[in-house]
């Protein structure tokens, strides 16, 4: 835990403390092999389960029958997701998820690989641009 505190910027620490050492479920909206530019238009999501050491232990991809921000929010709650990583999201849904104690990392741009890497490192932030980095 201490190591984590050293590695991540101070702004992020609070979120990681809240997530604790228990298994964490993270939902990433997908558009091909990248984070979907729009939360409300995503038709594919990846649900990753992170172990106590912060490594991805399990991954599953879910293809949605249709794009809908409401349905995605519902899925986040029923799947007991603790963090959502997405591109653009409307304020209404952002507030709703935050109110439901879900961490929302929005305006994230980049490939799934780069995002998962940052996630495992614990250095992912909202607004991160990970293309070509």
């Amino acid at each position: 835990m201490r190591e984590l505190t050293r590695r991540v910027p101070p702004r992020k620490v609070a979120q990681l403390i809240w997530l604790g050492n228990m298994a964490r479920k993270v939902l990433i909206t997908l558009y091909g092999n990248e984070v979907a530019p729009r939360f409300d238009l995503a038709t594919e999501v990846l649900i990753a389960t992170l172990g106590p050491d912060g490594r991805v232990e399990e991954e599953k991809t879910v293809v949605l029958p249709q794009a809908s921000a409401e349905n995605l929010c519902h899925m986040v709650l029923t799947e007991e997701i603790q963090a959502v990583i997405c591109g653009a999201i409307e304020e209404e849904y952002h507030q709703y998820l935050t109110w439901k104690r879900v961490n929302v990392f929005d305006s994230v741009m980049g490939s799934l690989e780069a995002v998962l890497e940052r996630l495992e490192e614990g250095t992912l932030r909202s607004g991160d641009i990970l293309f070509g980095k």
Partner: protein
Amino acid sequence: MKAGRVPRIKDLFELPVALSPLIDEVPLGVAVLNPKREVLLFNRALEALTGFARHEARGIPCAHILRSNICIQQCPIARLRNGLSDSVSLEGDIINRDRRKIPVRVTFAPIVDLTGRTVGYLEAVEDIRGLREMEGKIGKAYGFGQLVGRSPQMERIFKILPVIAQSDSSVLITGETGTGKDFIAEAIHQASQRAKSPFVKVNCGALPETLLESELFGHQKGAFTGAVDSKPGRFRLAHNGTLYLTEIGDLPLSLQVKLLTFLDDKVVYPLGSTKGLHVNVRVIAATHRDLEQMVREGRFREDLLFRLNVVRLHLPPLRDRGDDVRLLLEHFLNTLTSQFRKPVKGFSGKALRILLDYPFPGNVRELRNVVEYALNICPEDQIHPRHLPAYLVEPRVDVQRLQGGDAAFEVPRRVQQQEAGKDLNWAAVERKLIMDALVKARGRKSKAADLLGWGRSTLWRKMKQYEMDS
């Protein structure tokens, strides 16, 4: 664009000019993309619209910066790549960095070099929030297309029209003459996906049966005497568009069968041709007749009615539209004064009362004609009763329903008004009422007197007075 180099315009001015400051002055969001759809240039207006700074956007795929539904659902550059060389303009929305959804119109155009090779794309993004707000207000105040109305009946119609327009189902529009059936049909076409394709109108009552068949379905050269050329027919002319069949109630039975076949398999068989042609046409039909009654009388095919009756729109007569009369009077006065360049400002109180009391059997068309007549006659800045058509101003007989008689017996309103307009002599009208009652009662005077709500002696006296007892 190579990193660290400032993009310039050469050969336009004496010395090269930097491009970025120039596009920064454009009040529209502008982005220049490379063939991989990554952002090369980004102007100030687009920075303000998206919330991303140009240094953040540079080198990033445009879908992640613009974050528009167009990029994800129907990116036109993918189509441009497949050989389309024209610019494409589409409406959609973006979600900016402040998480706000903004309606936009995006124009995509290919950038070609001197050899004609596509070297990139230009994207112009226009914020249309103001336009949308205005559309909303206009829609609320006036209605749909050229139709105007604020009555609950019309509001209901305006609300469902956009939905109907977006579907591809057949529509049957019913309503009295002058209620705006033609306008509704055209408005549906204009608001539909077929708006850019033809809207072809055919009046089924205007042509004799033989001509109508060739007009609708076309004919082959030599199909009949005088067919010196092949004719495509209205169905083929309306391919990918809308065919509007007005006065469908007047369509002869033989053609009803042919129309029915078309609605089933979307294939037309021109006269004299053995080969059918597949056409993609949406059919909108309209009539002022009671089609259900015609079906009962065997004059209209029930199965055709069922096929046309997918979406039914009934336009209410003006007399049932309450305050819409006032609104329409003002509307037509405004449009016609500017058209005729007349300095008329409005109606006098008396003229307005006369107009509001009149039942307008010819509905909106009649109302428009009355306003047009008054405007032509009026030399002043206000329309007075003397400027209105005579049949509105002079006293008229308005017997709605004869009291105390057979409920089914009603003197047709239009007949009364015509009679009243033609001859304002009460004696003539009373004579007509007696005659109608006698016809209805098949000559039995006591029944006729009952129908009229008179005693037998009154009827006898009046018949004698009008010399009808012989």
